[in-house]
C-alpha cells in the first residue's frame, strides 16, 4: 500500500518536472530568440549608423543607396504618414462600428456582422495590397483627385499615395479595433447603463457619457494593437504607396515606408547598403518601442483618472 502511493507520487512528480522543464525551455527559447534578433539587428546596423553619422542617417532627406547616401527621414516620414492617416480613418470607424454592433444592432444581426468583420482579419495582406492596387488606387485618382483640385488646382497623383495606403491599412486594422472594442463595450456592467438611463439620459448620451468611458482601457488596447499591425504591415503597403523615397508634401504624394524599403531592397543590396537596411530596422524597432511606451503611459493615466 505504502509502496504504491510513493510509486504514484514518483511517477507524478516525474511528469510534473518534465512539464516544468518543457515550459521553461519554451520560455527561454522565446526570450533568447528576441535577444538574438535584437543583438543581430543592432550589431548589423550600427556600423552603417556610425558610417553615415547618426544624425545624418536619421534626418538626412536623401535615400539613394546607389550613391551611398542613406538619409532615412523620407522613410520614417512615409511610415508615420501612412500609419497616422490609417489610424485617423480607422479609429473612429472602428469605434463607431463597435458601438453599432454592441448597442444598436439587434443581437442576431450583430453576430453576422461581427463574423464578417472577423473574416477581414483572415485575408492575407498581399490580397489587400492587390485589392488596393486594382480598386483603391484608381478610385483615389479618379474620385478624390478632382475633389482636391477644387481648392488646389495643381494637385496631381497617380493614385499610388499615402491616402491609398492608409485606406487599405485602415480596413486591415478594423477587425482588431472593432472586435476588441465591441467586447469592451458589451462587457460594461448593465448597472451603468441602467443608472444612466434612469437619470433621463438617452441612448446617445449613455454611449458617449458612460459606456465608451467605462470601456476606454479595452478600446485603447485595441488601438495599440491596431497601430502595431499598421506599422509592421509591409506587403499591402508596398503595392500601393508608390515607393518613392522622397519627403511627402500631401496625402496624395507617393511614399516609401521603412518596412517596404527593407523588403524591396534587401535581396539585391550590397554590403554597406545591407547594413543601412539593418539600421532602418533599428529605427523601426525604436519607433515601435516609443509608441508602445506612449500608449502605456496614456493608458496608465487614464486608468488613474477613473
Amino acid at each position, binding site marked *: 500500500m505504502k509502496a504504491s502511493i510513493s510509486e504514484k507520487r514518483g511517477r507524478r512528480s516525474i511528469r510534473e518536472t518534465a512539464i516544468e522543464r518543457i515550459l521553461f525551455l519554451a520560455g527561454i527559447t522565446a526570450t533568447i530568440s528576441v535577444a538574438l534578433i535584437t543583438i543581430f539587428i543592432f550589431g548589423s546596423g550600427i556600423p552603417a549608423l556610425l558610417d553615415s553619422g547618426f544624425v545624418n542617417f536619421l534626418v538626412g532627406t536623401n535615400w539613394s543607396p546607389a550613391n551611398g547616401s542613406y538619409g532615412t527621414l523620407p522613410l520614417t516620414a512615409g511610415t508615420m504618414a501612412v500609419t497616422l492617416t490609417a489610424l485617423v480613418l480607422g479609429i473612429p470607424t472602428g469605434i463607431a462600428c463597435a458601438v453599432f454592433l454592441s448597442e444598436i444592432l439587434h443581437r442576431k444581426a450583430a453576430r453576422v456582422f461581427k463574423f464578417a468583420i472577423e473574416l477581414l482579419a483572415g485575408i492575407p495582406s498581399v490580397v489587400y495590397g492587390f485589392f488596393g492596387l486594382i480598386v483603391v488606387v484608381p478610385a483615389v485618382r479618379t474620385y478624390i483627385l478632382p475633389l482636391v483640385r477644387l481648392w488646389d488646382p495643381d494637385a496631381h497623383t497617380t493614385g499610388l499615395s499615402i491616402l491609398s495606403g492608409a485606406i487599405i491599412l485602415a480596413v486591415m486594422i478594423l477587425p482588431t479595433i472593432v472586435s476588441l472594442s465591441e467586447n469592451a463595450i458589451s462587457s460594461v456592467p448593465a448597472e451603468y447603463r441602467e443608472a444612466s438611463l*434612469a437619470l433621463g439620459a438617452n441612448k446617445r448620451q449613455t454611449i458617449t457619457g458612460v459606456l465608451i468611458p467605462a470601456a476606454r482601457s479595452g478600446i485603447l488596447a485595441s488601438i495599440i494593437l491596431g497601430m502595431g499591425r499598421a506599422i509592421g504591415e509591409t506587403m499591402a503597403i508596398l503595392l500601393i504607396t508608390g515607393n518613392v523615397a522622397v519627403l511627402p508634401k500631401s496625402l496624395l504624394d507617393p511614399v516609401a515606408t521603412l518596412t517596404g524599403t527593407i523588403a524591396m531592397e534587401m535581396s539585391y543590396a550590397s554590403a554597406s547598403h545591407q547594413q543601412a537596411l539593418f539600421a532602418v530596422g533599428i529605427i523601426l524597432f525604436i519607433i515601435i518601442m516609443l509608441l508602445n511606451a506612449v500608449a502605456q503611459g496614456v493608458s496608465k493615466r487614464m486608468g488613474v483618472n477613473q
Partner: protein
Amino acid sequence: MGNNSNAAMRPETQFEIRDLDLFYDKFQALHHVDMDILKNRVTALIGPSGCGKSTFIRTLNRMNDLIPIVKITGSVKFDGTDIFGRDCDVIALRKKVGMVFQKPNPFPKTVYENIVYGPRIHGEKNKRKLDELVEMSLKQVALWDEVKDRLHKPALGLSGGQQQRLCIARCLAVEPEVILMDEPTSALDPVATLKIEELMSSLRERYTIVIVTHNMQQAGRISDFTSFFLNGEVIETDHTDAIFSNPSNSKTEEYITGRFG
C-alpha cells in the same frame, strides 16, 4: 407652513395605477394592480421574493422598456398624465422619477463627475451652478464632509454605504419629484443602513419615496404607507401602522408575522 399642513390633511396623488397587467412574454408577473401613491409620502412595497415588487417599481419610470419581452396593459398616471401615452416623454419622466438600485452603481468616474452627469445631460453647463449642485446634493445625503476632499477621486474607491449615498445624491442632483428605491440597503451593513434610513426621513418632506424592502422593521420605521404584494397581486395597501398592527387580510398577517415568505 400653511401649505404643508394643508398637504398633510389632503395629500395629492402622485401615481395613479389602474388595472396594471405586466407580462414577460407569456408569464404574467403583475395582475391588475390598482394603487394610489401619494405625493410627499413614503410608500413601502413588501412581499416574498419573486412576487413582482421590482417589476412594479421599474414600471413607474418605464425602466421595463429596456426588456423587449415586456408587455404592459392598464394605465399608470403620473401627475395626471398617462406614462404609456403617446405624448409622454420618457426622458422627462425619468428626470422627475429618479431611481436608486439594489446594488450601489456609481459610474467608474470621479465623485464629482458622478453627480454632475445628470445635470449636464439635462443641459446645465455653468461650472458654478454644477459645483453648487454637487455640494448641495452631497450635503443632502450627509456625504459632503466625508468626501469633500476627494471629489476628484474615483467614486469606486468609496465604501459600499458611501457609494449608495452617492447614488442617492446623483439622483437628487437632477431634482426629481419621486425617488424609487429597490432594496437600497440590502447590500449594506447595519450602520450604513441606518444612515440611509435617516437620510430617507430627511428626504420625505420634499420627495415622494417608493421603497422596496424585505426588512419589516425598516418598512415600519420609515414608511407612511405599505403595500403587500403576493404572486404579482397587491393584497392590500394601507397606512403602515394599520398594516402592521391590524392587517385586514390574513395573508398579510401571515407574511409580516413571518409565517411564510
